[in-house]
């Protein structure tokens, strides 16, 4: 895989990101009302003061000018100030990011840990009872509404049984690993459920595909053990398409899990998004959406690179 290819892909991302930013900018500004509405009707805030604030935030300029200015400052790493709290957007996001990454990362790890064995087992034992049961469970996992599951789990484990804390990031003043894990348990399980289901289905399909390939049959014929064949050959090749899916999911977690965060009072990006939408806090909204989109775009590229690295047969022209 050539450097040339890599460079071309990276360059290709620039127009993509610009396109995304333009689309988002347009959508966000379609919304009626702006962030300074709270002060428009306040008799104590004079017209001059309002104008001053508008100028300070650049809200007095025509929209295309606002857009270009925004692009320029984003490129320079200056993401502006949140209109609601007055603090830099980067600070607002950075504060919530660790919690989101912790939750996302944990649920991702959980998903992978569960999806891998399920996918392999259902592929190897296809059409047996095991396959049917696990397949049914997988489909069930994809079909349960997240909020319903979250509420049911809360009801069961926190209120009825009292095993786990109801919500929150940590017990204030306490902390420590067990406390952290106890708070993480339910939200992580809820988040990972749909992904486990989806990934294990995906993995099964590509394993079945791989197992049907010639080189696998050759390996069997050569006398390799079933497990060996399974793991060494089929799995390695079956993982390739899964790489793409996993990387997209990883990037998607940056956007936060809005519903899970609300039910479990988890202080992450998803809630920040909803609050910023309520308050028409444009700088934060743009920052969040761009971050999410950039994550998806980069993870796409990363997946392609990993793909090409693992399988030398894959060529990009």
């Amino acid at each position, binding site marked *: 895989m050539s450097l040339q290819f890599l460079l071309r892909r990276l360059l290709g991302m620039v127009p993509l990101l610009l396109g995304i930013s333009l689309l988002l900018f347009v959508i966000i500004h379609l919304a009626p009302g702006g962030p300074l509405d709270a002060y428009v*009707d306040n008799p*104590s805030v004079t017209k001059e003061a309002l104008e001053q604030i508008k100028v300070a935030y650049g809200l007095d300029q025509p929209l295309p000018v606002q857009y270009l200015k925004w692009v320029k400052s984003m490129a320079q790493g200056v993401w502006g100030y949140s209109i609601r709290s007055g603090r830099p957007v980067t600070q607002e996001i950075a*504060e919530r990011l660790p919690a989101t990454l912790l939750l996302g990362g944990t649920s991702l790890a959980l998903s992978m840990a569960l999806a891998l064995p399920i996918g392999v087992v259902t592929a190897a034992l296809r059409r047996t009872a095991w396959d049917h049961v696990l397949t049914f469970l997988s489909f069930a996992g994809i079909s349960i509404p997240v909020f319903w599951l979250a509420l049911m789990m809360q009801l069961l484990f*926190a209120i009825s049984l009292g095993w786990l804390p109801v*919500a929150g990031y940590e017990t204030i003043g306490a902390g420590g690993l067990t406390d952290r894990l106890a708070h993480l348990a339910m939200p992580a399980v809820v988040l990972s459920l749909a992904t486990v289901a989806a990934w294990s289905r995906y993995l099964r399909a590509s394993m079945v595909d791989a197992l049907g390939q010639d080189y696998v049959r050759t390996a069997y014929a050569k006398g390799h053990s079933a497990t060996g064949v399974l793991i060494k050959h089929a799995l390695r090749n079956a993982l390739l398409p899964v790489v793409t899916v996993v990387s997209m999911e990883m990037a998607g977690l940056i956007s936060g899990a809005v519903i899970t965060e609300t039910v479990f009072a988890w202080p992450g990006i998803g809630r920040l998004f909803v609050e910023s*939408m309520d308050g028409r806090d444009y700088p934060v909204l743009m920052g969040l959406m761009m971050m999410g989109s950039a994550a998806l775009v980069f993870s796409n590229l990363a997946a392609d690179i990993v793909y090409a690295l693992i399988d030398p047969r894959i060529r990009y022209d």
Partner: protein
Amino acid sequence: MLALAAAALAEPPADAAPPEPIRGGTLTVGLPYDIDTLNVYSTAELGDVEAAVVEGLLVPDEHARYVPALATEVPTPQNGGIQLTGGGTAMRVVYHLRPGVKWHDGVAFTSADVKFTWETVRDPRFLAESKDGSQDVTSIDTPDDLTVVVNYRAISPAFASTLFTFGILPRHLLEGHDLNHDVYNQKPVGTGPFKVSEFRRGQYVVLDRNPFYWRRDERGGSLPYIDRVIFKIIPSSNTLGALIRAGEVLLAPRIPYMLAKQLQGARNIELVSGPSLGWIHLDFGLRPESRLRDPVLRRAIAQAVNRAALVKAAGGYPQPIGSPIVPLLEALHDASPEASAPAYDPDAANQALDAAGYRRGADGYRSKDGVSLNFWITTRSGEIDGEIGEQIIMAELKAIGIRVSADNKTGIAYREARYHGDFDLLYTRWVTAADPVYSVFYGSHGPLNGQGYASAQLDAALERMETSIEPAPRRDAASEVQRILAHDLPAVPLLNMVSIAAKTRRLKNFTINPTNMTDFAGIARWYLEPPAGSVP
């Protein structure tokens, strides 16, 4: 109302010896909203946390009457605290400040801080929600460290409602700083019973006891009794309920009626209710092209609403009312029929609409001159009580042949609609200060008058009500205001809200504060009994 207020006090009978308050403990509070800033003047929410940290010159108590805080007495014309000037057209208020009060960092509190507060709040560069009153002051003199003379440009009976009551800002920390971006917004410094130790955005605020707090209890002992207060931010009502039941939250102020219903009978939890200065009402959008400008239609809608159903849906807690001036404001409330909105009478409503030419079609809905009666009703999204009430009103209006569909909004979109009159029907609530000013809602130039209602007669009555210091003329003007509103019906007053708090039985001396200063204005006297079975 008095009975409710008494119930809220929950104190033992006067002849029993009051139990010795117990010192220590941590109180966890569940707040149902996300804190935007801890600066009481600029926050869009109520200042629960701030009330425990920052103090003002006066503070309204649980009966909505002002009592002194950092001032030694409430200024009145009788004690010379309020003096008429300018030949009776303006006034001057004199405060005597409490000696020996220190800021949390040990620096002494003086009159310079009061003057600084006024200068900062009224500064146009300071972006704030609550600047009321700062424009009415022409100048402030500070003849010595403990005296403040505030000169007003006119007579303002409601002078105590915002400025100086919300809180005094520390001059030695904020002079020369830009308050919009100062660390004060995350860690306010005050003179109150608690100081801010930590504020984690989106999660919690930790307050610790102020050992140098100036207030003492009846025995001369130091206050506050509680060592630490943790405010947890829990925007989801379900989660809050779960946390309360699990004992992870010991106090939840102003919970929705739905949640109160569900917590009834929960172990170790008691519900305390108290009257509130808030009221729920149905506003009419009176834009020039709106059909709701027809007074017959508005009257019929008023008669179609069954307040009893609304009360029932809210668990029986709120009280039905017919006037926007709530009964708790005894000096102003007029309960006579002429001053109240029409009573529930759907038959009369149907008759009136028939007589006015609004004929029912085959689908049961009315129309006149080919235009059908079809309206949008708006309330704030996410407020369960509001959404339930809205549903009931929709059903009741359907019963008299008016089709109504829901168009709920959230956040800024809601404010936009509310303040620009972008609605047909608005089901909403206001909470006022202890000295409410109604011209902001119903005056032709009222900043909160989004409906487009204007009446010269009402403006005149409001003017009289808001510039009379003497109680009798004020009461007469208030009656006239209520009569005009009952006749014009720009809005239908529906329910007087009741403030309900869910708390552990271990928390004592807690009282509901009906004003916008929140229950936490009285936190210094609360104490926690230790959990059963533990060593005191």
